[in-house]
């Protein structure tokens, strides 16, 4: 189980970049983070947490952090389907709404807090 806890965080959140070592930093938007995760999933990465938040308000966040890890298995349909569906869903909502840049700092903070909870959960569930 030595490598079981290895993970990488795909993020565009500068706070996360500062606080974690295992970061694939995306210079870009929430949507760009989703694209990067999609590309990784299609090359055999496992999706650890769900790409979408738990409420519509979190769709308006400028920042998003998603945990992935390299998988020795071939591409899993569930992960590919989940990230592809998430992208379609995200684009649907953002076609009529603006990214809430005014509250950017607060979104960065909450994104980092939710990431922390997701990593705690990852430790509990995956070990």
């Amino acid at each position, binding site marked *: 189980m030595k490598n079981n806890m290895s993970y990488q965080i795909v993020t565009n959140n500068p706070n996360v970049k500062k606080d974690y070592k295992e970061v694939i930093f995306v210079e870009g938007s929430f949507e760009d983070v989703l694209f990067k995760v999609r590309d990784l999933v299609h090359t055999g990465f496992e*999706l*650890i*947490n*769900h*790409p*979408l*938040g*738990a*409420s*519509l*308000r*979190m*769709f*308006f966040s400028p920042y998003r952090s998603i*945990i992935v890890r390299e998988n020795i298995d071939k591409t899993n349909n*569930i*992960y590919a389907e*989940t990230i592809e*569906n*998430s992208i379609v*869903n995200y684009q*649907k*909502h953002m076609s*009529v*709404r*603006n990214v*809430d840049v*005014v*509250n950017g*700092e*607060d*979104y960065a*903070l*909450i994104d980092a*807090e*939710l990431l*922390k*909870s*997701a990593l*705690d*959960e*990852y430790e*509990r*569930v*995956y070990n």
Partner: protein
Amino acid sequence: MKLELRRIHIKDIQLGNETTVKNGVLTVNKEELISKLKEDERIKDVKLDVARPGEKVRIIPVKDVIEPRVKIEGEGNGFPGVSTKMAQLGDGKVNVLYGAAIVTVGDIVGFQEGVVDMWGEGAKWTPFSQTFNLVVDIIPVEGLAPHVHETTVRLAGLKAAEFVGEAGRSVEPDEVLVYEMGSHAEESKKYPDLPKVAYVEMLISQGLLHDGYIYGVNSQLILPTLLHPNEELDGAVISGNCVAACDKITTYQHQNNSAILDLYAEHGKTINFLGVILTPELTTLEGKFRTCDYTAKLCKSLGADGVIISEEGYGNPDSDLLMICKRLEDSGIKTVLITDECSGWDGMSQPLADTAKEAIAVVSTGNVSHVVTLPPADRVIGNDKAIATLAGGWEGCLEEDGSLKCELNAVIGATSEIGYHNCTVKLY
């Protein structure tokens, strides 16, 4: 278990020098409540205000709503495991200040929504425009970490509800509702021919501003668990989330969970109600698989013929909802889902973030994306800067007369996924 909810009908709230209920008027000792709440050193100041149905008042950003009550017989006054010592809930007599609500305001982050308009268009969409609201605005000391701030506001709301609830201790109720149900063996013996129905209530369980608590336990840390319905009606479930305003289940709505009450009403008539399974909506995929498997297993172990499932939130929880549905339907258990829709401004888009062919019986509680126009208020309780957040959604959402257009998403309880709200379903 046998629980009596003894409703004292409240017709007004006044701030004064004593905390009493006389002839349906609830008076709250303002100074005493403020000093009680300020016993928590994390609280710098507390502002109390009253908002009544029909007044041109806007409350924003609402964090939680709680029904003030006092337990006059049986264990567990208050919220055991959270604000009072641990006790088994579900039995006894509770005096309820029915028609009154404690509404907490706390802008933990700038993008919180959570509007309650007490009049006009906005009032149509939230059930809390119909309650007499004691608004508790918590100002924390500076430098609190966000999760400490959230805890502080959550606990203050619960303490305020307990303090105010005490006013009803010796008051004769206007109506008494009795909820009584024995063990599964006893109820199955009584109603051998009725179909067995369980209720799965999903709770957002994902971190700061996205949590729920059961007897004080953060639901992130649990496997799905079985409750007697009386436990939830007696205050076992607390809301710790406040980002998803329209479909957040407030503590008030847990105390008065419509799905539970409706299932209770049919118990012994058309169904044998087996109880409530609280299921966390986790954030990791493996976590979701585990809780969904476990939920289905609990339903099967109980011998359920049918299951009602209600969701909380939108987005990744949709996956849990449909996974539970699929697992149950595959096991031959009929399911009915209760959820709201994010189907776009015109209501024509795919309503959920996920799909499953097994989801053939779904009750919609409204379209989160439906746009409403809220006229300017005479008075704003809370933080009027939060209105800018609502107004910042898209081009042209702030009109010249000060009216603003927002999606129902911003309105507390507008599309409640346990059905405690004002929308209804129309068949075409």
